[in-house]
């Protein structure tokens, strides 16, 4: 890798052994993926490690080394959701004991994040790019983020530039203020090697569409055509919500870190099909294909036809609009059918939940019909072996991919929630 003078000095240990280890880690990581140089990080950070898991103690030792040397992240940052919410989520005694064991270092983890310069105590969400949380990078800015759903969103919808960084490397890049220049940071790395043709009559569920794309293109970049005819060409709030969920599904069912949508996402609007590489492959998605993908998901419940016990909505976290959408639609179903029959959690960032709470009438009504709001990561909830045995249903294809939860499209989910 070609290094600048100041980088060479750091690597030679002229600013001490700690900075030497930091830059060495970043360089070696970059070299594995073919980076030729380091480039300055221009924006804020988002980190994935928000959980004090006992399993990763040596990682907390590294953070201690940084903190003890007075190293702080250059700008306030956000992190993924907390794993545990004893106030808003119902746990059995055994579940609590196991959570306290798995995430036994939660307090220490949060203290470390505070010392490293986290934005505030409400900065725990995978949707840090929403207005309420405010970690919104600018188009073209170089970043070093982790959390796959956030990475794919800021790359695709905002046009910022970050690779899908690993836990640990993300923090080291950001305290160093530099990222290895490869992949999505480069012009070439942002070009598409798949043309995805959407040939359906009505707008598909984003979680299913993202899944189909992810399962096919894996870590490649798709250029999607035919979708803007159904969703429009403006990035309004509804469209951004749709793209958030599409991206999260594509990132988890495959490893998509960037997608372009013709006439909609910023780079596709600017460059059109010039973004397609010469040797691209083509994948056509029609109703039949979406049905095939949906029916391919394995059912991991022991009692396959058992009644669902818990529903998680919002992985990634819901936006304010989405919370209201679910509330209104659940209310309509309840009017028709009587009551909510399954414990239903809507997951969202704390500042988003605060906004709902400020709307006292809605919040009270939500509580009355049994909808619970929480800021946890439902994936981390499912990491508890007792919880993973429960029959959990969800609108999230990401949660389905990484757990035993069963995925349903929104309309089906609404039906199940109010079914006797």
């Amino acid at each position, binding site marked *: 890798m070609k290094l600048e003078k100041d980088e060479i000095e750091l690597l030679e240990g002229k600013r001490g052994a700690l900075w030497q280890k930091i830059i060495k880690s970043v360089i070696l990581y970059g070299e594995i993926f073919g980076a030729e140089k380091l480039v300055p990080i221009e924006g804020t950070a988002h980190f994935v490690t928000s959980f004090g898991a006992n399993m990763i*103690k040596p990682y907390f030792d590294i953070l201690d080394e940084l903190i003890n040397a007075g190293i702080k992240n250059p700008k306030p940052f956000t992190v993924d959701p907390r794993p545990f919410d004893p106030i808003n989520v119902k746990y059995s005694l055994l579940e609590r004991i196991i959570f306290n064991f798995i995430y036994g270092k939660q307090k220490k983890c949060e203290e470390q994040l505070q010392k490293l310069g986290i934005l505030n105590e409400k900065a725990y969400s995978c949707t840090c790019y929403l207005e309420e949380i405010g970690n919104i990078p600018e188009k073209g800015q170089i970043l070093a983020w982790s959390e796959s759903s956030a990475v794919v969103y800021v790359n695709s919808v905002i046009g910022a530039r970050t690779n899908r960084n*690993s*836990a640990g490397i993300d923090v080291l890049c950001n305290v160093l203020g530099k990222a290895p220049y490869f992949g999505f940071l480069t012009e070439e790395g942002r070009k598409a090697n798949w043309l995805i043709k959407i040939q359906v009559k009505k707008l598909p569920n984003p979680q299913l569409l993202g899944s189909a794309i992810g399962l096919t293109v894996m870590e490649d970049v798709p250029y999607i055509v035919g979708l803007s005819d159904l969703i429009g060409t403006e990035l309004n709030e509804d469209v951004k919500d749709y793209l958030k969920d599409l991206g999260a599904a594509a990132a988890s069912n495959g490893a998509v870190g960037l997608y372009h949508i013709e006439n909609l996402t910023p780079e596709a609007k600017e460059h059109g099909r010039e973004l397609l590489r010469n040797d691209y492959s083509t994948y056509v998605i029609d109703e039949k294909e979406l049905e095939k993908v949906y029916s391919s998901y394995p059912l991991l419940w022991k009692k396959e036809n058992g009644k669902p016990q818990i529903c998680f909505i919002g992985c990634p976290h819901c936006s304010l609009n989405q919370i209201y959408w679910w509330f209104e639609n659940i209310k309509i179903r309840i009017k028709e059918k009587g009551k909510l029959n399954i414990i239903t959690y809507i997951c969202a960032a704390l500042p988003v939940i605060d906004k709902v709470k400020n709307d006292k009438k809605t919040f009270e009504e939500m509580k009355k019909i049994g909808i619970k709001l929480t800021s946890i990561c439902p994936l981390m909830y499912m990491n508890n072996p007792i919880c993973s045995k429960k029959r959990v249903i969800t609108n999230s294809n990401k949660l389905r991919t990484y757990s035993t939860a069963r995925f349903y499209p929104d309309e089906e989910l609404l039906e199940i929630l109010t079914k006797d």
Partner: protein
Amino acid sequence: MKVFKGKPIISGNVKGEALVSTKGFNTLASFQKSIIMRAKKAICSDQDNKELFKKIMTQKILCIPQTIGSRTGGLVILTIAKMNIEPKAFLFADRIDSLAAAGIILTDVWLNKKIITVDSLGKEFLEVVREGDVVEIKNDGTVILC
């Protein structure tokens, strides 16, 4: 004797016994129990991986396509290295994934411990290598199935 050429990620010369998973290696699920139990040897606890489940991984040469699963995967590699229960080497048929790369680099730099790693050995490597084979790894990424 069959020879494969890969790309050394952490180079070194080593010889050992192969342990093979033809499907993605779930790092957290595989090492979780051994870490929790503070075991002296890592025994695979990933029930979904029929090829490796209940087998000893410490000091073996782990032959896999890529690692999969939780975002903590890389940090789990760091933990097993700290506990001295890591495999002798990782051999990847595909290109190394970012989680494993992070774990191996952090182990090298922050624990000053090298887990010899070679990637891009090709699909054929996993079709040929069998559990228990003696595998020799050379500094330049050459892998010999003895």
